[in-house]
């Protein structure tokens, strides 16, 4: 086995919190984020005054109001990775770096939004003023929006259709992601799609939104929040739970990050750059993973991520995801909580929370027996990628 390096082993996740998952809530984004944050702090056995770093989400709520509402008296460190759904894992990496450098001792990384209610406000709801911004909005407004390409499914379809047509990726490969997520959601009290199982035939019968994306390829709009608390590996040993140690991580971005179609290789994601760096830092191989929590905003994006991670050649993920290989009981259980597809869309922070539950051996019916190591990916905006490899114990 190769040697671990860099930030490997420098910090651990010691607290998790979740608020959700709902389609419709009377809670504001700030309230949801604060509840998840306080739960994460308490789960760690800490008090707000023990927290000295905050890495806020890339929008909606800011570090100063979070700190003030929670009553954190001495904020020593803040930073805000702005890469959409790749941000939570980037926040974890950033927290590990800050702790390793001695800039902070315990860092809160929260996120949350009203992904359902913002689009369908209740009749009596006050106007939602909370927004987030991203640089790529300029590209979208100037070059995609005018062409009937309104939001993420339409933008991503521009590269996903080439993936499908050029490499002959069958819809059943994407369906295997949807079916696995839905199957795992049946075991999770907190999953939006619990009680609504999905077969491959039902998936294939869902209508196209914009090709190659069917309705069954899209994740669920959700109101929710989630948070983690990160501290040094040393201090983690004395806290309430079995520590979940950061073994390796990296971010990566497409060339070019602010637009989709003029990249030399339109299908090369940020994760293609990040994954080898993370495995090198952890000193492990993709084949060592006991589970995979893969950012699944859309099934086909998850397939490309599996290829970027090295589980298949470009266009070859169909073989990897078939025959239950990515379901509980298979070799690489994927999104054991249901993922964005079937638990809810919490920007992938729910994937980190689930990885922690698994490695604490506290994942209930979805527990991957005796798991020791697993990975979490993030995907955001126009293809930003992040990955963290996590291990059980200090």
């Amino acid at each position: 086995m190769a040697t671990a390096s860099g930030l490997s082993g420098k910090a651990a996740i010691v607290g998790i919190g979740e608020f959700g998952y709902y389609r419709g809530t009377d809670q504001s984004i700030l309230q949801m984020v604060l509840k998840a944050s306080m739960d994460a702090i308490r789960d760690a056995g800490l008090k707000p005054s023990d927290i000295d770093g905050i890495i806020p989400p890339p929008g909606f709520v800011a570090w100063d109001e979070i700190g003030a509402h929670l009553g954190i008296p001495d904020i020593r460190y803040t930073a805000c990775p702005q890469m959409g759904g790749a941000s939570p894992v980037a926040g974890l990496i950033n927290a590990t770096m800050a702790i390793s450098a001695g800039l902070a001792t315990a860092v809160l990384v929260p996120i949350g939004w009203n992904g359902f209610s913002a689009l369908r406000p209740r009749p009596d709801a006050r106007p939602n003023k909370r927004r987030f911004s991203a640089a790529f909005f300029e590209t979208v407004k100037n070059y995609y929006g005018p062409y009937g390409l309104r939001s993420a499914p339409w933008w991503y379809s521009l590269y996903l259709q080439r993936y499908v047509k050029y490499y002959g990726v069958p819809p059943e490969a994407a369906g295997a992601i949807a079916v696995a997520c839905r199957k795992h959601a049946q075991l999770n009290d907190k999953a939006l799609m619990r009680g609504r199982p999905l077969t491959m035939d039902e998936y294939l019968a869902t209508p196209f939104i914009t090709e190659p994306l069917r309705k069954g390829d899209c994740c669920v709009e959700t109101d929710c929040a989630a948070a983690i608390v990160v501290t040094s590996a040393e201090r983690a040993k004395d806290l309430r739970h079995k520590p979940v140690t950061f073994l390796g991580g990296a971010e990566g971005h497409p060339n070019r990050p602010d637009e989709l179609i003029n990249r030399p290789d339109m299908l090369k994601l940020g994760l293609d750059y990040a994954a080898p760096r993370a495995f090198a830092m952890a000193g492990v191989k993709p084949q060592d993973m006991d589970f995979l929590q893969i950012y699944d905003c859309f099934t086909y994006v998850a397939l490309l991520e599996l290829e970027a991670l090295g589980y298949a050649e470009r266009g070859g993920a169909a073989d990897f995801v078939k025959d239950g290989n990515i379901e509980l009981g298979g070799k690489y259980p994927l999104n054991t909580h249901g993922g964005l597809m079937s638990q809810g869309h919490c920007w992938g922070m729910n994937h980190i929370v689930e990885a922690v539950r698994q490695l604490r051996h506290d994942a209930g019916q979805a527990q991957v027996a005796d798991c020791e190591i697993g990975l979490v990916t993030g995907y955001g905006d126009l293809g930003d990628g992040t990955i963290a490899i996590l291990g059980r114990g200090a």
Partner: protein
Amino acid sequence: MSTKPKVQPDDLDLAFYQATAEARRLCLQHCEDCGQWTHPARYYCPACSSENFTFKPTNGEAEIHSFTVSHFSVETAWKDLVPYVVIVAETQEGPRVVARTDLTPEEVEIGQKIRLRVEVIDPEFSYVWAEAAA
């Protein structure tokens, strides 16, 4: 005639649209030092870091690099047009642009030769249209 979408480009995106409307042809950024074509336009040439560029008319020849067929829209301008095809066109000069088309879902395939023209909506916005190459 298409209606004007809500678009207010600025910086080099505005320069791109202005040049295209004036020439009534798709104009792309062209590096005066190394000859590299770039889209969207950048203040530094991605090939040689030069700041010397013009927006030059392209010859209109392109091929389909990717596309989508949209079967659903909530937008007034588009919902009556479903299923509509949107093309990622790779110009002969190199850069790729998004284009509208009257080609049907049955008619489009990756690698197909197409011809690009522009529909000038106003001095600051034009649509790129793709049609089958003659």
